[in-house]
């Protein structure tokens, strides 16, 4: 069983010549996720969501605090879906899948083909990424993340560059493939509807990278964005954001 343990995670970017002001991306985030849970991290731009994922993925160093991502006591394998597809443009779709596969075997290719078929892309495995539409490229990105048999799945606003209809069909793919594997997932988004539709639990961040709320979403799956129950949770999430903003503004006036 995979566990993500985050303690007092802080990240401060020093001023640079191009942006001469220091930026606090994360201000002491603590949380723990265990088991087959789908957690959405919800927040506006500048609330340190991408930084959080990068640190959890181990590609960025925190300024302070600690992260442990373990599976049965050993470091967990991470699968990452990025905001953009991030495929090697000079390799075919299938070769892009094999590029990230570290445990090579005779089954490697068949596994890659299986996950491509899960996202409906069996027919384009031999094509280059530039020959696919943006939505298809992102589907390759999703299949790639599942291919490494991850204990933990990290997703950074994977549908934010899509138009609304494409995003909707991709969310369906994600729900289907996640139901098949049920990996521990950390899903970063700024879209309230998306968070409620996908997540078991929603972690809310405010600018400066501070967690201000954490609510469970106990709704049956599969969920549709137009369900009344989904709407009710969305409304509640938005209400909490509004009261947070009001509190911040009120605090400013008091100082």
């Amino acid at each position: 069983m995979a566990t993500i343990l985050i303690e007092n995670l802080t990240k401060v970017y020093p001023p640079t010549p191009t942006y001469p002001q220091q930026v606090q991306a994360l201000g002491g985030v603590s949380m723990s996720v265990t088991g087959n849970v789908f957690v959405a991290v919800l927040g506006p731009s500048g609330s340190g969501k991408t930084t959080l994922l990068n640190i959890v993925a181990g590609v960025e160093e925190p300024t302070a605090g600690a992260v442990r991502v373990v599976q049965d006591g050993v470091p967990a394998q991470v699968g990452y879906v990025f905001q953009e597809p991030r495929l090697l443009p000079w390799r075919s779709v299938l070769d892009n899948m094999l590029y990230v596969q570290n445990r090579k075997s005779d089954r490697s290719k068949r596994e890659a083909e299986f996950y491509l078929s899960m996202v409906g892309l069996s027919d384009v495995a031999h094509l280059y990424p530039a020959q696919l539409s943006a939505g298809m490229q992102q589907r390759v990105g999703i299949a790639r993340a599942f291919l490494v048999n991850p204990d933990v799945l990290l997703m950074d606003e994977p549908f934010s560059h899509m138009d609304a209809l494409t995003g909707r069909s991709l969310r369906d793919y994600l729900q289907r493939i996640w139901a098949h594997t049920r990996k521990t997932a950390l899903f970063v988004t700024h879209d309230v509807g998306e968070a409620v539709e996908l997540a078991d639990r929603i972690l809310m961040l405010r600018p400066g990278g501070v967690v201000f709320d954490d609510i469970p979403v106990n709704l049956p799956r599969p969920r549709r964005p137009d369900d009344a129950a989904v709407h009710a949770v969305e409304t509640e999430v938005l209400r909490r954001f509004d009261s947070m903003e009001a509190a911040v503004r009120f605090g400013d006036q008091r100082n």
Partner: protein
Amino acid sequence: MSYATDLPTTSEFGQVPGTPQGSPAEAVHWTRKPWFVNALAVAILLVVWQYLHSVNGRVPSIDEVVSFLGVELGGGSHGGVSRGEFWGPLSISLQRYAIGLAIGIPVGGLLGLLIGGSRRFRSVLNDTVLVLLVLPSVVWAFAASLWFGIGSTAPVVAVVLTAVPFMAVNLSSGIRGLDPGLALMSDAFRVPRLRRATHLLVGGALSNAVTGVRLAFMTSWNSLLIVEWFGTASGVGWRAKHWYDAQRFEGFVAWILLFVVFITLLDWLVLRRLEHRSTRWQQQPTLTFAEGEIA
């Protein structure tokens, strides 16, 4: 110093991106057909040549050069005791060229990989490579022939030293131009170093690497000729100098034509194909079916 941007990339010739590449064949007027343009270019060159011959007696005429070429290639007599020689000098020069490039291109490629792939190596090695790049090939040629005498070492060393910086600079600037997001992606998936080097760095910078190979071929051929001209007693450069010293300018011009033919053949048969292969992924037509079609 940033000379990387000053590098001439011969691949840029003849095709300017962003402009339409012409209309369907049946609509093309005969003055726009490739054969006409080619013939026109050749005609212009021949007319300019003949004009130069008519105003300057030291420039040989076209038929003088052609008949000289026949004798030199066929091994006939140039009059008096000297005989035509072609395959001998050519095979000696080609050997030197091949050995030099076989050393210089891998070494330059490795340097380019290190400089492009690691900031530390870059800070240490970058200036040295740039100094090597800026050094005119004539200096290499002179230094090599002073150090190694008239044997085959000097030309080989000159070829190596010319090829290395071109290869290194082109490959490393290609690598540095890669999307940093792809490196981050490879970090996140814990892709091992070796696979990352071959698939991400070399794969992504392959077209730059090929440009580097092309420039290395072109410029080191030039260095080879200079060394052979000044510092050896064999090879094609020496042969051209032989006719120059004998005041037989038709012989000299004939050899220049052979150099041009050699480089052109090399370019068409090897380098252009390499380049085409390395950029294949950019040339594929895009599929245009709707997103929801498969869903």
